[in-house]
């Protein structure tokens, strides 16, 4: 009895105090948000939250770790907006759509998250876009290339990576014209990115007059693909085109010869480029192709490479080719926040629609990956894909491009 009485007194006190505080609050905030998507309000002492979302653990962690470092360096180079610190939240998706959606929900629930530099991986992004679209959080993806993504997020989705429409088209051209291959089998990992890419590539290849067979799916994350590879060998292709990521590509190339595909070329994509693939597949990687996004040489990029190695110990480009993209995506967002943010008394107001518009109207932004201009529909990519081949255990530019 005694306890319950003191408890009720305590609760009453809390309630009254709460009411008083709530009653006083509007008087302290004269700013009225007129933005149709609402405003993110950062009060004095608080930080502006920008998130990077990607696979930080599990099979594909090399991508997430690398891109998040690029994002961190961008924040380090531009740490404040109008006197308010930028805080970079790094969230893990393990590369899966499920985790992608749950991280998006978590970020959408935080009213101070203004922008997301992400996600990395198209499947995870596809699942997340509708959530950000509803929460009016603007996105700038460093690495998702699935052609359909801008259509799923017509208002908030932007990217600094190229579209797979381009990659598929160029790969088909290169394989048909330069490698003179007429019969390919396309394989994907069942994910949104891989499937989208190989379908685009197969269509382009058939248009050129070649034969694209298969569209065979494999289950990602396995260590034995000998049976599906034997089925592919029965089609007698000259080349195997794979849409997916490095860990699975490494298993495929190491088992190809054993399954009767010795002498058949392996052509990967931007998801299979990197040193992780070389480490995992060893000798079998020799003569296999992938896609790389060349970064134009510049003084800022040289400085970025030096900073990257100084901060993280690894040489830039070891884990994945995308750390400059992580940097650019984050830098573009910070730049847009700078444009859109308004000061009001002690707090910083970021109108969400104005911020999205600022991102959409970016023009000639000097990024590491080139001069970035948003086409108004979300595509900001400056660089186009370059095909690479493994020679003596190193990625070198494939001849004849």
């Amino acid at each position, binding site marked *: 009895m005694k306890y319950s009485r003191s408890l009720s007194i305590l609760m009453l006190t809390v309630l009254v105090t709460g009411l008083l505080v709530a009653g006083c609050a509007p008087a302290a905030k004269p700013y009225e948000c007129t933005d149709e998507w609402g405003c993110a309000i950062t009060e004095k002492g608080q930080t502006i939250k920008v998130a990077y979302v990607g696979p930080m*653990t*599990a*099979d594909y*962690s*090399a991508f997430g770790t690398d891109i998040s470092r690029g994002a961190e360096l961008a924040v380090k180079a531009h740490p404040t907006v109008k006197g308010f610190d930028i805080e970079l939240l790094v969230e893990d998706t393990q590369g899966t759509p499920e985790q992608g959606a749950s991280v998006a929900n978590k970020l959408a629930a935080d009213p101070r998250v203004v922008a997301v530099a992400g996600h990395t991986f198209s499947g995870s992004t596809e699942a997340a876009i509708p959530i950000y679209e509803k929460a009016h959080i603007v996105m700038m993806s460093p690495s998702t290339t699935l052609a359909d993504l801008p259509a799923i997020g017509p208002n908030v989705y932007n990217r600094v990576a190229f579209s797979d429409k381009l990659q598929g088209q160029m790969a088909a051209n290169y394989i048909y014209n330069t490698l003179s291959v007429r019969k390919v089998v396309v394989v994907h990992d*069942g994910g949104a990115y891989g499937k989208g890419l190989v379908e685009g590539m197969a269509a382009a290849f058939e248009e050129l007059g070649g034969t694209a067979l298969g569209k*065979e*799916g*494999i*289950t990602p*994350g*396995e*260590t*034995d693909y*000998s*049976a*599906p590879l*034997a*089925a592919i*060998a*029965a089609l007698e292709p000259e080349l195997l085109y794979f849409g997916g990521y490095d*860990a699975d590509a*490494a*298993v495929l190339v*190491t*088992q190809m*010869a*054993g*399954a*009767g595909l*010795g002498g058949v070329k392996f052509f990967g994509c931007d998801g299979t480029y990197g040193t*992780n693939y070389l*480490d*995992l*597949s*060893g000798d*079998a990687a020799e003569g296999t192709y992938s896609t790389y996004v060349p970064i134009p040489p510049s003084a800022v990029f040289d400085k970025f490479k030096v900073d990257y190695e100084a901060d993280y110990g690894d040489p830039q480009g070891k884990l994945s080719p995308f750390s400059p993209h992580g940097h650019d995506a984050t830098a573009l967002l910070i730049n847009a926040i700078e444009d859109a943010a308004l000061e009001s008394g002690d707090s910083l107001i970021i109108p969400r629609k104005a911020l999205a518009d600022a991102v959409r109207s970016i023009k000639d932004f000097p990024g590491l990956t080139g001069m970035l201009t948003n086409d108004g529909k979300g595509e900001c990519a400056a660089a186009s894909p370059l095909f690479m081949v493994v020679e003596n255990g190193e990625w070198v530019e494939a001849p004849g491009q």
Partner: protein
Amino acid sequence: MADAAMADAVQLRHKRFFNLGRLVRPTIGVLVIAFLMWRLLTVLFIQQAYGADTWVRFAVSGIILGSVYAVIALGYTLVYGILFMINFAHGDVMMLGAFAGYFTLEAFNGAGILNRSLASSILSITVAFTVGMLVATFVAIALERIAYRPLRTAPRLVPLISAIGASLFLENMAQLVFGAARHTYTNPEVAKRNIGWTLMVSGKEVLITYTGVLTFVLSILLMIGLYILVQRTKMGKAMRAVAEDKEIAALMGIDVDRVIANTFAISGALAGAAGVMWGLHMGIVYHFVGFLPGIKAFTAAVLGGIGNVPGAMLGGLVLGVIEAMGPAALGLPFQLKDVLAFSILVLALIFRPTGLLGEVLTEKKA
């Protein structure tokens, strides 16, 4: 009174259920057989998608995979035979064995012994197997001591939950210690993946890899060894006695705790060998590598008749071959091979709950 009424109601429900059950089984059977006939006919006779060489490749891939499943399945079946408990952490014991083999080979490679001569290569592989088996044995004994022995008298669901917990613990510990990245096995040059004998089938070369042959032969030897151990030795006799009845065995002067610890040690050693085989043949190990083979091997053990040693071998081989040939024979995408494997588990449970070679279990075991 109330009790009697309730018992009547229960009985009535049972009766209805069984009546329905009598209809369900033949219906499922007819549907499955019709589906199989239709697909097989389409693929094998109308489409004729694959030549003989491809079928041989599928079979080779399936037999190798199946022999690894069989070795893992033996561990499940041994433990089940004695404790009537499913050791879900078994696949992760295999993963730790695979890692032990990986580090051994790395060490030999670093010391320059791996490729010095044929004898040193053979020595490296032998040591890798020994270390893998020892580490896995140790882990299995520790698991029994820590996670299962204190729960020996608890209801049967409790050690099962403990096993799932142990499995998650081992996976996450491995991720923490070895990192989330994948590791590639360094094979000696003489036993590299993708080299081996070539077999000519209908004018085409089919590669039979050395690692595959090693895996298959070794797994057969392990199975034979285990069979002799269980059937012909004193320890095997004690194990069979404990499997029959723990109390009576204890009264006969058998140290039940020791026999159970021995069983775990043997199942661990088998899992360790399976892990090193997996690494040598498939090439890639990581913290999650034991999960799916573990579940598949459990399926194999049930398919063969859980608690039955030859059954586990047969179940493993059958499952491996079905997984490799099934999707192709039925004209299904290869992504559905796991669906196929687990459908077999469901069908086995419906039509032959005792498994292919299963004994009719006594009330107590079932």
